[in-house]
C-alpha cells in the first residue's frame, strides 16, 4: 500500500511537471525566457518581436494589425498582438507592476486616458518616456495633457473620444425641428426641445445610466474643467460653477421626464437601436453601434454637443479615448521605435485607419485627405468623420488626474441625494470633503 501511495505522489508530480513543461515549449515568443524575464524576443530568422496588449478586436486590435503592415522602419520586427478586455488589462498591469515582476508583462499597452495618470504616478519608473521619439505638437493638445507626466510624454496619443450629439432626424421633424435648430445650442435649449419632442413623438430625448458618469465628465470637459484643480490632485468639486450647472441640468432632465434610464451597456445600446430615444450625446466611437441597426439608415445625423452656460464652455468635448504606452523593460527602444514609425508619424497609416476601421486618431497631420470627406449615407450623406476631426481640434485640454473614477463614485451618490431634494451646494460641499478625506 505504501508503494501505491508513493507511486501516486510521483505520478502527481509528473503530471505537474508535464503540464508546466508543455507550456514553455510552445511559447511563441521564441527566446523570451531570458533571465531578466521580459517579453521581447527574437525568432530564429532574426525578426524581432514585441508584445502589445489592447482591447476591442474591431478597433484597437485592428489598428495594431494595420500598424504591423504599415511599419517601414529600420528594424526587422513585428508586434505580437494580445487581446484583453480593458478591465483585465488594468488588473494584470496592477498585479505585475505592483509586484515589481516584469515577467509576462507586454512591451506596449493601451491605457484609457482617464486612468493614465494613476498608472504613471503610481509606478513612476515602470513606463518609458517617448519624448525623444515623437513631437507632442503633432497631436491634439488635450491628448498630450492626458499622456504627459513630469515634463515627459509617456503615451503615444491614439484615438479621440471626441463627442457629438447623435440625433434622429425623423423624430425631430415630427416635432417640427430641423437639424439646424439643434446645432450650436445650450443644454438648456436642448432640454426645452426635448420636452417638445417627447410631447410630439412620445420618445425620450436621451438615455442615461445613473451609474455611469460619462455624460457628466463629457459636459465638464466641454467647459475646460475637471474634478480637480490643474495639479490633477486637489479636488475641485465645491464652488465649481460648471459642475454645479451640470448637476442642475441633470436634475432638470430628470424632472422634465425626457430621460430613458438604462442600467448597463447593452440597455444603453438597445435604447437607440430600438428607436426609444431621439438623441444620443456621446463619443464618436459609438458610430458602429448606431449603424448596427441598418433599418434606421438615413434617419440619423451628428451635431456638435450642446454647451454649458459658464465661461469658456464650447460645443465640443471628449469621452474616453486611449493611448499607447511603452513599459520600461527590455525591448522598450524597439517598441518605441515601432510606435513612432506608425502611430507617431505615418500620415497614410491614419488614412487607412479611417477607411478600414473608421478609427479617428489625434495625429493632426493625419486628419486630412479624401478619406475624411467621405459621405455616410447612414447619416443622410453627412461627412461625419470630417466633422468629428474638426471638433476634436477644439476639445479643451484638462488634467484628468489620478482619481477620476474614485470621484465618479462619490458624485454618483451625491447626485442621488440631490435628485432626492438636497441642495446642490450642499451635495457638492459634501462630495468635496469626502474627496479630500478619501484621496489624501
Amino acid at each position: 500500500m505504501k508503494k501505491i501511495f508513493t507511486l501516486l505522489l510521483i505520478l502527481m508530480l509528473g503530471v505537474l511537471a508535464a503540464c508546466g513543461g508543455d507550456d514553455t515549449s510552445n511559447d511563441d515568443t521564441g527566446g523570451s525566457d531570458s533571465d531578466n524575464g521580459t517579453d521581447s524576443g527574437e525568432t530564429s530568422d532574426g525578426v524581432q518581436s514585441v508584445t502589445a496588449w489592447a482591447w476591442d478586436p474591431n478597433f484597437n486590435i485592428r489598428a495594431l494589425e494595420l500598424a504591423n503592415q504599415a511599419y517601414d522602419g529600420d528594424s526587422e520586427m513585428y508586434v505580437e498582438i494580445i487581446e484583453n478586455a480593458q478591465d483585465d488589462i488594468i488588473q494584470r498591469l496592477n498585479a505585475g507592476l505592483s509586484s515589481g515582476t516584469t515577467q509576462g508583462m507586454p512591451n506596449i499597452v493601451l491605457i484609457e486616458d482617464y486612468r493614465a495618470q494613476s498608472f504613471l504616478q503610481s509606478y513612476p519608473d515602470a513606463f518609458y518616456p517617448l519624448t525623444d521619439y515623437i513631437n507632442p505638437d503633432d497631436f491634439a493638445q488635450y491628448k498630450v495633457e492626458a499622456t504627459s507626466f513630469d515634463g515627459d510624454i509617456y503615451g503615444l496619443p491614439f484615438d479621440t473620444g471626441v463627442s457629438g450629439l447623435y440625433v434622429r432626424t425623423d423624430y425631430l421633424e415630427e416635432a417640427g425641428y430641423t437639424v439646424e435648430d439643434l446645432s450650436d445650442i445650450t443644454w438648456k435649449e436642448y432640454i426645452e426641445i426635448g420636452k417638445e419632442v417627447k410631447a410630439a413623438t412620445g420618445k425620450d430625448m436621451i438615455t442615461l445610466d445613473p451609474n455611469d458618469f460619462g455624460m457628466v465628465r463629457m459636459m465638464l470637459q466641454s467647459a475646460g474643467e475637471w474634478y480637480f484643480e490643474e495639479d490633477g490632485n486637489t479636488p475641485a468639486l465645491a464652488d465649481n460653477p460648471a459642475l454645479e450647472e451640470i448637476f442642475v441640468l441633470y436634475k432638470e432632465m430628470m424632472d422634465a421626464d425626457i430621460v430613458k434610464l438604462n442600467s448597463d451597456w447593452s440597455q444603453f445600446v438597445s435604447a437607440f437601436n430600438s428607436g426609444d430615444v431621439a438623441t444620443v450625446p456621446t463619443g464618436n466611437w459609438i458610430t458602429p453601434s448606431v449603424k448596427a441597426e441598418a433599418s434606421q439608415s438615413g434617419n440619423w445625423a451628428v451635431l456638435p454637443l450642446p454647451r454649458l452656460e459658464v465661461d469658456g464652455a464650447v460645443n465640443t468635448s471628449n469621452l474616453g479615448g486611449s493611448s499607447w504606452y511603452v513599459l520600461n523593460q527590455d525591448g522598450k527602444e524597439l517598441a518605441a521605435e515601432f510606435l513612432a514609425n506608425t502611430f507617431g508619424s505615418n500620415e497614410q497609416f491614419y488614412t487607412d485607419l479611417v477607411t478600414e476601421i473608421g478609427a479617428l486618431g489625434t495625429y493632426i497631420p493625419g486628419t486630412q485627405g479624401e478619406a475624411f470627406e467621405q459621405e455616410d449615407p447612414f447619416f443622410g450623406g453627412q461627412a461625419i468623420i470630417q466633422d468629428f476631426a474638426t471638433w476634436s481640434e477644439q476639445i479643451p485640454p484638462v488634467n484628468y488626474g489620478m482619481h477620476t473614477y474614485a470621484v465618479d463614485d462619490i458624485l454618483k451618490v451625491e447626485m442621488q441625494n440631490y435628485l432626492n431634494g438636497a441642495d446642490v451646494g450642499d451635495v457638492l460641499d459634501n462630495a468635496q470633503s469626502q474627496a479630500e478625506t478619501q484621496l489624501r
Partner: protein
Amino acid sequence: MKKLKKTLIYLFLSIATIISIYPFFWMIVSMTNKSVDVTQGRQLPGTYLFENLRKLFDQVDMVTALTNSAIIAILSTVFTLFIASLAGYGFQMYRSKGKDIVFNILLLSMMIPFASIMIPLYRLFGRISQTAPIIGIDTLAAAFLPTITTAFFIFFFRQNTKMFPKDLIEAGRIDGLSEIGIFFRIFVPTMKTTYAAAAIIAFMNSWNNFLWPLVVLQSPSKQTIPLLISNLGSSYSPDYGMIMSAITIATLPTALVFFFMQKHFVAGMMGSVKG
C-alpha cells in the same frame, strides 16, 4: 382542503422554478439571435444559431480555451480531493497536541480574501519563474497550484470524517492493514458521497475561477474559458449573440459534471448504508 394545499405548493414551486430557470432560457434563446435583437430583449428563438457559432469559432480559439480550462479544473479537483481528504482525515482521526491550534489557524485563513494575497502570490510566482519556469508565471500549473487545497476543503472533509465510524479503522488495524491502507481501502470507498460533493464544488470553483488565472496567464494560448468570455465583451460594440453562445458552451461542462456526479452521489449513499 388537502388538494388546495397541494396546488398552492405546486404553484409556489413552479414559480420558483421558472424564476431560476428563466436566465438559462434567455441565455439559450439569445444564442440563436443576432446582437441587435439580444440588446432589444427578444425572447423568441431566432435563426442565427449557426451564424453565431461560426463567428465564435472563427474569431476566438474556443478549443484551446476549453482544453486549458479542462486541464486546470480536472488537475485542481484531483489534487484538492487527494490533499484535502488526507488532511481532513488526519485532523479528525489522529491525536496530536497542537492539532486544534493548527486547525484553527487554517480556518482563519478562510477569512483572508484572495485579492489581498494576490500580489504577494504573483511576486512568489515571479521568483519561481526564474528558477523553475515550468511552474512559473504564464503556465497552466501556476494557474491551479495556489488553489489545490483550501482551508474550506480540509474543513469540509474533517466535518464529514466525523461521521465515519472509528470501529472500521480498528477493524482494519486488527486485520493488519497499514494506516495508508486503511485510508485508501476503507475510508475512500466509504466516503464516496463526500468525495462526489467535494468534487462538484472543487470543479466548479476551478472552472469559474477568474481573478488568479487572469493575472497569471498572459498569453492567448493559455487562456481559460472565463478569460475568453471576458475578452469577448471587451469591444465597444459587443456581439451579444456570439457572447451568449460562448457562455452556453462554457456552462455545459459544469452542468455535465453535476449530473454525472449526482449518479455517484446516490451510489455512494447506498454504499455507505451497506457498509
